[in-house]
């Protein structure tokens, strides 16, 4: 994270902006080439078509998973788990991060604990959580909470800590109360970091929920679709579920978080400085 902060340069204007049509044509070309290579590989007979199905079989699996809204139900179950897990993570991590950013004692006391727990991959806890809470929904959601809480905590903490002290002092001099300083100065100033934290937390939660669904076997979910398809050697179902997972991830990255950043951070004239 440190490196990317320090090398923000005038890199954007390196080239004259290539015209969009050429870009689109080349992009399509790339995708077509990628698919063609896969198709050739699938039909080459190197592997049986049961495990490397050709594109039309995958498409057919996708279409049949649309029937009755099956895939939407599964995706909905996965997203609901992410939403619940993220909510809990927000409730836990945001106040703690703010406390750590504002009070030295809290920071001193909690930082070692955080640095012990943070590097443990959330999925390492799955077998233990399954023993404690049984397989299913609770276990999967707990894994999501663990995965999402630390990026949030870390970014909120950093954001609150790095608020420009001059702003705080200026507000105090102008007679702002503690609550007012917090609401009017610290919160907006820390917001870019908070939003980066939410974005990172979603990325982690998205990995954790799929991993949790594979390992903790709840009854529904995209990870479960893949896991079940594995039992019956349905590679076509697996690949179509992967495409759905990719589309949802891309949708959140592009449509939700980019837009969120644009309407909040950029409008207020503060750009987030910590990258992925």
């Amino acid at each position, binding site marked *: 994270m440190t*490196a990317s902060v320090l090398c923000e340069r*005038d890199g954007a204007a390196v080239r004259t902006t290539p015209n969009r049509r050429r870009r689109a044509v*080349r992009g399509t070309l*790339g995708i077509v080439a990628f698919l063609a290579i896969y198709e050739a590989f699938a039909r080459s007979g190197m592997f049986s078509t049961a495990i490397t199905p050709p594109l039309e079989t995958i498409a057919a699996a996708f279409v049949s998973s649309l029937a009755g809204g099956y895939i939407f139900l599964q995706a909905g179950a996965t997203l609901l788990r992410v939403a619940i897990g993220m909510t809990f993570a927000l409730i836990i991590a945001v106040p703690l991060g703010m406390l750590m950013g504002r009070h030295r004692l809290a920071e*001193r006391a909690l930082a070692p604990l955080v640095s012990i727990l943070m590097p443990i991959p959330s999925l390492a806890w799955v077998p233990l959580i399954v023993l404690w809470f049984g397989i299913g929904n609770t276990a999967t959601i707990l894994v999501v909470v663990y995965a999402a809480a630390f990026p949030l905590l870390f970014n909120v903490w950093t954001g609150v800590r790095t608020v420009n002290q001059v702003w705080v002092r200026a507000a105090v001099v102008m007679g702002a109360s503690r609550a007012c300083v917090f609401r009017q100065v610290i919160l907006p100033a820390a917001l870019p970091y908070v939003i980066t934290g939410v974005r990172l937390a979603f990325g982690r939660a*998205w990995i954790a929920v799929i991993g949790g669904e594979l390992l903790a076997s709840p009854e529904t979910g*995209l990870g479960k679709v893949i896991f079940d398809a594995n039992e019956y050697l349905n590679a076509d179902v697996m690949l179509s579920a992967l495409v759905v997972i990719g589309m949802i991830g891309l949708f959140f990255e592009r449509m939700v978080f980019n837009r969120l950043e644009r309407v909040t951070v950029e409008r207020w004239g503060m750009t987030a400085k910590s990258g992925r």
Partner: protein
Amino acid sequence: MMRRALRMRDRAVGVVAPAVLIVACALAWEAVARYGNFPPKLVPDLPTIAGAFLRLLESGTLAAATGATLARLGAGFALAAAFGVSVGVLMGRYPFVEDTLLPIVSFLYPIPGIAYAPLFVMWFGLGDLPSILLVGVSASFTIIINAWKGVRAVRPIWLRSAHMMGANERTIFTKVILPAALPYVLTGLRLGLASAWRILVAVEMLMSVQQGLGWLIFGSQQFLNTDVMLATIAVIGAIGMLLEKQLFERIERYTLVRWGMMTA
């Protein structure tokens, strides 16, 4: 005098406060384990966990598992680094490559690597090969994206002046682009290593490898060896911390700071 006393008090607080909290957490765990009315098999007390750790250490199981996991991590990460940096640099240097690959990369990037696990089992069977490939795949996208951004962020004026002074394409690449893009590339490698580490433990659970820390946790679940699981989780955390803190901070100090690309 006053200031020094304050600083010493500060330092004392810095040691005491976390120690108090960690001891409090340990005591809370111990209290729950002993008096919490949970089966001790599921919530072992701290001496039991420490005993399991020592037992694993003595029998060599832990060393073997750690070695196997780190070897897998090294192989997967090396694969991801080689592939990711080359693709990323090509994308940053040649607009044609960038335009062609960017849609594919940005579609594949948000798919969690772990989701490919069952597919890789089908294609490559169980064991080491699919685990290494999967770790490689899931770590490479962050590396690609960062290397690409790094090359794109090289100041055009440096390129132009090197060109003016008669540097050929190769000199420009090795003397200008690579050093200038290095901070981004290293950031990408660090993030890639971190994501490889996070995914590897889970991959080992799904791939039923012969040995490994993830497998140790997963295998212990069958026998309700919660103490072994917790001891292994602690080891995993410690290794993760070392990888993040020691390895990359050191590399950054030796390269970037020394070359003046970044202040320590």
